[in-house]
């Protein structure tokens, strides 16, 4: 069956197809008879379109939307006729590359590939149906937690009593995210960083020529069972030191932040 035809490259993760291969240099789209220029795919993507690779070997192939103007001289057109290559790259475009709107700046990835190619390749929405087990996440450390914290996979610091003025429905909405966050936080790999943060012997000074005296964490690779238990307790103790609440959207906008953590000197978390 095989042995002839294009060689298939190794598959990419998660069934993602290969992207269209974009040339480093392109015909200058601004000038009909211009020379080759270095491509800037955030700018030049919009001059290209793609289709599924008919050979199936790679995911996509591309072509310029407008073919470069051909040499219109009689000699050149006779030659093209002889070679019968008048319309060899006139296939229909299925996907537009480049930024989806002219007047609005987009993040590089979208400005480069365009939404249609990203979608087709599997980076947007899927046809797999709704997710199966939204409440499945549970941490590796769950079974090692002290008895009192074992029954609920939610980490003690993310329990509902830690959320101020967040109602039952909102907490329920966020439950899958809170379980995933719990599994991430309550993992020995993550706990290494928290162990180092709370352990002065893991703090190492260095001097940067510009910033001055600085500190770096030496994060242990494989903390002992005792260190993990100690770290879990330190994290648990945060129940008295912090809480979560919905920030006013205008405040976050002003801060230019997705979320933020404020020190609240001299107040107890319970009174907030």
């Amino acid at each position, binding site marked *: 069956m095989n042995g002839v035809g294009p060689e298939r490259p190794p598959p990419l993760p998660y069934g993602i197809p290969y992207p269209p291969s974009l040339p480093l240099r392109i015909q200058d789209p601004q000038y009909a008879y211009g020379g080759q220029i270095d491509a800037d795919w955030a700018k030049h993507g919009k001059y290209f379109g793609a289709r599924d690779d008919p050979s199936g070997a790679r995911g996509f192939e591309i072509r310029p939307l407008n073919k470069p103007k051909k040499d219109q001289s009689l000699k050149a057109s006779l030659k093209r006729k002889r070679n019968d290559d008048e319309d060899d790259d006139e296939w229909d475009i299925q996907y537009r590359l480049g930024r989806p709107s002219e007047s609005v700046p987009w993040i590089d990835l979208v400005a480069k590939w365009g939404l249609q190619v990203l979608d087709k390749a599997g980076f947007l*929405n899927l046809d797999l149906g709704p997710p199966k087990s939204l409440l499945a996440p549970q941490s590796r450390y769950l079974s090692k937690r002290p008895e009192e914290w074992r029954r609920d996979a939610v980490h003690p610091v993310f329990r509902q009593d830690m959320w101020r003025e967040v109602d039952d429905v909102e907490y329920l909405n966020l439950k899958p995210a809170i379980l995933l966050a719990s599994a991430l936080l309550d993992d020995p790999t993550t706990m290494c960083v928290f162990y180092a943060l709370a352990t002065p012997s893991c703090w190492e000074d260095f001097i940067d020529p510009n910033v001055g005296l600085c500190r770096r964490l030496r994060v242990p690779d494989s903390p002992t069972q005792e260190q993990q238990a100690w770290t879990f307790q330190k994290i648990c103790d945060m129940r008295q030191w912090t809480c979560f609440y*919905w*920030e006013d959207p205008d405040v976050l*906008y002003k801060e*230019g932040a997705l979320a933020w953590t404020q020190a609240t000197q001299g107040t107890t978390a319970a009174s907030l």
Partner: protein
Amino acid sequence: MDSGDTGHHCCKPVSYPSCLWNHVLLRLSRTSSDGARRHTKHSRIGMSRHYSTAIQNWRDKDTRSDYADFFTNILDTARTSRTHIPPNFEQNLDSAPLRTIVLFAALLVHEFAHAFRMAYYSNPLGVYQDEPWIGDSRFNELGHALMLHMLSSIPIANFFKPPMGTPTQIKAQVDAYAPFGIFVMEKWQPWLPAGNGFLQKGIKNDFTSPTTHFPVPQRQLYDYFTEDMWTVKVPRFGLDALRFVKIPEWASHRMPGPNPVKPAEKSTVR
């Protein structure tokens, strides 16, 4: 500047040249703390309600149209031309909230790290930056450093810059709904001069290397919410089972421009 307040100004907005917009100038999160120093500090973590609303609207999508409406409206806000919209972008929404869920989870752990640092990491005389460095990052942003440690990169919703006059909540909604997918990156604030919490050390490597973004396969997020992930893969491989896959073929690389001290100028995307 009050010497006891280093962390505060290190996190203040740096003024960005406008051409830097595409380089993720958004600061993922901020830490603030007041000038007085004690060894341990209480804190509170302010989150955005849009994440809850997004999931609520998704759960109700068979009885209300708010979820699909968001996808339709955001295309209008971004002035997207019909020729560039993927088929079924506004209908095929069964797995779309997974992005909201994963981003919120990452944000929660990120912010919690700041709170934990405030409680346990002491800097009594304020001689250091508020946060310690981890690894060889130039900027001392603990939440991002933790994300790199756990998941190998920082996840962010793909976004556009809302046009002038757009309601202020649009950007926050895009961050939460992630209608255009998620990308991950390792350098969160590339190509900034030393100072303000940015080390001199490593500046050469930073200024001469591209800023790279990778799109996250939706299938990877889908697999986070399967029994197999939590009963087989995570117990066996730990967080490696959850690390974001970075497919080099699909990356966008913003290449530094010709000016060695201002790499953003005339930078181009490959």
